[in-house]
């Protein structure tokens, strides 16, 4: 369990990720805002607490690795990496600008701290399995974390990789399912109903952990702690999230997958995030 001080620290980190997402996307004028916001809390827990990484040595051989199969959520990851010191926070404003090191989709060649390039949905699960397989061969204790979204689950390759991951007992690979219920053309139920995702993973040989509020850092933390003791079977953590979470302008709204963000809209968002900061300040003062 996180104590309140740790919880506030991670919540503030997540709030800063959201500021980074908004500042980057607003600088360019448009971007993948909904899916980036929905994983902000997850990425905050991973980079504040769970993952063993070294910002001074992004290619450290024994590091934990993160594969964001929903590569369009790059802005969330870039903000987390900047906050962890992989590169200056000011760089976030270069998102998608000509010649940038921060392209729309995660790119390991350009961005320090990105373990693998993604963007063509469905390919991340295999890449994560490859990292886990390589670590298993070498007897390393490193873990690989894989974030998939609904789009990934609609791609058949994700399930090929699930079979492979279970068959080879890659229990140091943790699949994190960002189930925000929406995709480009509408809700997932309308476009292509995914049914019971946890049940599907279990039938593929995974242990699953359901996180009722996938945007609550405490619940995410507890799930990640719980899976540490699980052996021989891979783990899927099903996070019930809200697309656009943390900002009322976008939260739960179909259409926020990729959208324009004007300066005025960015200002409104920043004020809301500053309000969140003040709430966190008040909690901190009461400790």
């Amino acid at each position, binding site marked *: 369990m996180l104590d309140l001080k740790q919880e506030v620290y991670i919540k503030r980190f997540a709030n800063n990720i959201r500021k980074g997402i908004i500042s980057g996307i607003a600088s360019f004028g448009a971007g993948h805002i909904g899916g980036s916001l929905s994983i902000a809390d997850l990425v905050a827990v991973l980079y504040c607490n769970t993952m063993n990484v070294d910002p001074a040595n992004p290619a450290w*051989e024994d590091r934990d690795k993160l*594969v964001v199969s929903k590569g369009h959520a790059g802005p969330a990851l870039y903000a987390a990496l900047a906050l962890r010191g992989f590169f200056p926070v000011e760089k976030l404003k270069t998102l998608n600008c000509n010649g940038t090191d921060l392209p729309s989709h995660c790119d*390991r*060649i350009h961005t320090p701290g990105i*373990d*693998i*390039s*993604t*963007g*063509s949905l*469905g*390919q991340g*699960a*295999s*890449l*994560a*399995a*490859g*990292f886990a*397989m*390589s*670590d298993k*061969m070498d007897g390393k204790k490193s873990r690989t974390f894989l974030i998939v979204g609904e789009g990934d689950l609609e791609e*058949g*390759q994700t399930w*090929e*990789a699930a*079979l*492979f991951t279970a*068959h080879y007992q890659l229990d140091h690979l943790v699949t994190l399912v960002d189930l925000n219920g929406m995709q480009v053309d509408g809700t997932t139920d309308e476009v292509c109903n995914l049914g019971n995702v946890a049940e599907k993973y279990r039938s593929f040989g995974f242990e699953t952990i359901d996180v009722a509020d996938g945007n609550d850092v405490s619940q995410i933390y507890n799930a990640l702690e719980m899976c540490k003791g699980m052996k021989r079977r891979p783990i899927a953590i099903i996070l019930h999230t809200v697309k656009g979470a943390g900002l009322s302008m976008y939260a739960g709204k179909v259409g926020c997958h990729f959208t324009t963000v004007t300066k005025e809209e960015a200002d409104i968002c920043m004020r809301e995030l500053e309000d969140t900061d003040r709430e966190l300040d008040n909690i901190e003062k009461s400790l």
Partner: protein
Amino acid sequence: MSTVLKSIEEYVDLCTVYTRILAKMIEEDRRVVHIDADLCASLGVQTIAEEYPQNIIDTGVMEANMIGVASAMSVAGKIPFVHSFGTFATRRCADQIFISGCYNRANVKIIGSDPGICAESNGGTHMPFEDIGVMRSFPGMTILDIADEQQLEALMPQIKDSYGMMYIRLPRTNTVNYYLSGNHFIIGKANLLTEGSDVSIIASGIEVWPALQAADALSREGISAAVVDMFTIKPIDRNMIVYCAEKTGAIVTAENHNVIGGLGSAVAEVLVETLPVPLARVGVKDRFGEVGDRQYLAETFELSTKDIVRACKNVLERKS
């Protein structure tokens, strides 16, 4: 110039040669892994798994997943050779090769077995006439068309030690060894097998042997044909193509592939940008494959010695 056999047909099963070399490479360097999509047995590599179980990985029939797994393993420092039939090793998982592999600057060696008519009785569904065309447009991809034992033995260490994505066409069985001992093979550099003054035949893979036979047949009619083994399709040896154009003023390409997108196209691209000379392309004329034995298919798809001879005569008529 290379030394070649031109009259004795000595057949070899390259799957056995590949397995033998792979086992030695794994013994010497445990970073080498072979990943297969349920076709280990078709190469014979499962025998290696008895001694090195970690280095032979069978994904089951999931080529897309295989490419992803291999790409990340290579980024983590392993040297994966992956295998399926040429069709499924390329066309079926083209986007995975492009994004998980090439875009990630990964280091995966893709073995596509039974290229073109070598698929024989597996027929049109398994007969890649388009694989080079698809792979050639992927940035950074190296493409090799191999059909000889000595050539494979010489190139395997280079394939392993040269970082980057590679596609290697490999007939499993029943190819003619055409090199004598003592030849040199360098990725990206073509081998001039016989000199000639009237026409140059630039061939690759299983078309090298009929190209040599064609040169013999032409010489009996007083026509001097050079033969080049262009075993690296990409990066293509531009210098050799220009040398052939200057020396003979006419070129015939011969490939076990669609004439669209393969060796003939690659040679044509170089010629039009350097020294345009008459060119004829022997290859599959934009058709699907079908079942049949090697000889029947070579005749059906106009890949035989006599087709190369005819193409040489045609191109010589245009030379003046």
